[in-house]
């Protein structure tokens, strides 16, 4: 495995600026419609939580445990050359699906489906063939993202009532459909989601590619010590929120989350959020979202 020159990718400068740009690009200024979720959805409500970075990292850690999903990313995405760009692209996609007009979301999804047709190969560990367009793989990626959003929000964010979690899982079915999973396959409640994840567990394992990419993400080489400082808390939040079995697959350990530690992490995430808000367009985008949500509340 070759790790490119540390100076090329490990700067948090790129991470924050490009994530912010990705977010801003995904929230339309004068939308023709409310997109696939809309301002009354739980999806919109959850999306603004400051635990977003932790949920994002945790969902990558979950997704990477599927050997075929990981092999596809590992062999095709070129994340080593531009890890920040890869993360920003994912984040732009998720934002567009969540907040974009229906046409924009469909265009973004079609693009991803097109790319997926070229992502095929053989996983070196299991010897199994994979196709990125395989609904089974797409479903795992989807489920890991949705479950992480709920788990992390519950652990570190503001409280999320059970019925809201269920509504969120149900709302997100359409996101799986957009990328090519038949709706009938997609869990539509927390219970179904948990059962699905449980059913996939026998297939999961920490392949060398997963170990390498997650080791990179958790401790990016060449990261400046100040950024490493923030990243420690983001990473701890992601690791501590994993199911025990997933943490054990990676061989990671995490001190239990005490109320004091939880508050500390929230405070660090608040600082990170303040920095994010300082990036061009982020505040305006959030205000657009808030204004639409408030208008929806008024109508209700």
């Amino acid at each position: 495995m070759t790790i490119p020159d540390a100076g090329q990718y490990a700067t948090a400068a790129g991470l924050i600026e490009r994530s912010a740009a990705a977010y801003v690009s995904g929230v339309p200024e004068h939308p023709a419609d409310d997109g696939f979720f809309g301002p009354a959805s739980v999806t919109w409500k959850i999306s603004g939580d400051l635990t977003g970075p932790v949920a994002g990292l945790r969902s990558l850690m979950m997704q990477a445990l599927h050997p075929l999903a990981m092999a596809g990313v590992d062999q095709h995405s070129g994340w080593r050359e531009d890890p920040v760009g890869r993360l920003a692209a994912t984040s732009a996609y998720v934002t567009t699906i969540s907040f974009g007009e229906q046409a924009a979301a469909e265009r973004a999804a079609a693009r991803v489906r097109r790319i997926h047709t070229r992502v095929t190969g053989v996983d070196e560990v299991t010897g199994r063939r994979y196709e990125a367009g395989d609904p089974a793989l797409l479903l795992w990626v989807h489920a890991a993202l949705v479950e992480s959003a709920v788990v992390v929000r519950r652990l570190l964010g503001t409280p999320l009532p059970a019925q809201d979690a269920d509504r969120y899982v149900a709302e997100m079915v359409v996101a799986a459909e957009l990328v090519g999973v038949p709706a009938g396959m997609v869990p539509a409640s927390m219970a179904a989601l948990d059962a699905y994840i449980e059913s996939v567990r026998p297939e999961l394992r920490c392949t060398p590619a997963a170990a390498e990419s997650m080791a990179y993400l958790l401790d990016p080489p060449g990261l400046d010590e100040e950024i490493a400082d923030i990243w420690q808390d983001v990473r701890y939040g992601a690791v501590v929120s994993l199911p025990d079995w997933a943490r054990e697959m990676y061989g990671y350990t995490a001190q239990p989350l005490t109320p004091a530690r939880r508050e500390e992490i929230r405070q660090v995430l608040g600082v990170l959020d303040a920095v994010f808000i300082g990036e061009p367009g982020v505040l305006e985008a959030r205000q657009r979202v808030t204004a639409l949500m408030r208008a929806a509340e008024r109508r209700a």
Partner: protein
Amino acid sequence: MKRLLTGTVVAVGATGVAAAVLLRRRARRAGPGGNLPQHRNLRLSRGLATIQLVARGGARYASSAPRLFAAAGEHRQQLRNDLALQTAEDVASTLGTMKGVLMKLGQMASYIDNGLSPSVRRTLSRLQDSVPPMTPELAASVIEEELGAPPEQVFASWDPEPIAAASIGQVHRAITRDGRAVAVKVQYPGIAETIAADLGNVALLRRMLKVTAPSQDVDALLDELRERVLEELDYRREADNQRLFADYYDGHPTIVVPAIVGELSTRRVITSELADGARFADLADWPQSERDLAAETIYRFVFRSLYELHAFNGDPHPGNYLFHGGGRVTFLDFGLVRHFTDTELEPLKQMARYLCVEHDPEMFRRNLEKAGFLLADAPLSTDQIVEHMALFYDTVRESRPLTMTGDYSSAVVRRFFDVRSPVTTYAQIPRSYVILQRINLGLFGLLGELTATANWRAIAEEIWPFVLGPPTTPMGEAELSWRARHPAPGTHDRVG
């Protein structure tokens, strides 16, 4: 990765902030004869990045909302309401998890570290305006909790639209039942608890402060920040302070401090007389003679308060003044007042006295050491020390008309943070005087922006307790009869 250790931090702006905000590296303090701090320049550039970060956030907040409002046309008011803080949870998510503390830190940092351009300083001062207002309902609920009834019942008339943002609240106009026009500052619900909790994370604050104010004693600064901010959360203390200043300056020819309406002031509500006047920015169009008079009033206010009231209002923020012409200035916002004991004040007086009046450098040095500004037995000649420190007294060393300029205030700031000077190694700011740096870094900047001319030395002599010279300006003359009624109180009952 060394990129972040250079000016790049500044260039990348907000990103650098993320790095800078959470710097963990320990600032090394030099003791006598050893251990020169090695990373001073480094830390300075990081501190700057932190401030610019905070400033950038503020600029976006402040400038983006109006842009959105402008685009909204007729729906503008609706949009304003939609973005308003509706509940205590909204307050917590907007100002909690360190954001409110960051704003206070930014406010403080603007006076304690260098390199702030006027535009960054302006931006920082707008940071506190960056939070959306409360909805009329939320503000009314605070009034009801604090004063026992909804605002329409407590007041004869109540304007539900806030007229100004305060750092942790907002200001409404009202008319009391006995007919007085008042300004009512209403604190965001839950903010005191939120900020107090965030101030409890000393480790994170220490990390942020180390980069925000690299040339400072971080622990002293941290104590000072926590104490000042915690005080600010209880409006009763602010009301007490404002009352102290209002009583003292009662009848003053040019200094106006709005009176507190005690029965309508509580922990989360302050009611004071309504004041109106021109804003600092308006002074740009005023004749220089008017600007000079305004500056003279501010100067007299700061030093009379310090030497006679033993109190310093630590917020020389352009937004805290209203100007009425003829030198009359209304002073607002007493949320950040530091009281000094005789023991704390004495060396300050002696320093000015021995440097500027007695011309006794050795005694000047001894008092610097006594106050803790200079480590004892520093291997430096007294000439070196005087050469370094005298700049801070430049405006009062000679009796002659002198124009305050941006150049002078910048030179003061540069000298203050002059990392090349051997004196800096042995200089420090003891905790009790941290807030006074705002004289050097805030007041002089303000007077510099006014390009104000006066014989500052002559005015200082009127005020210096060790001189108490005769009036030297028409304003000084006008103060005579007021002073007869308000002798320097010397020791008085301290507030709090």
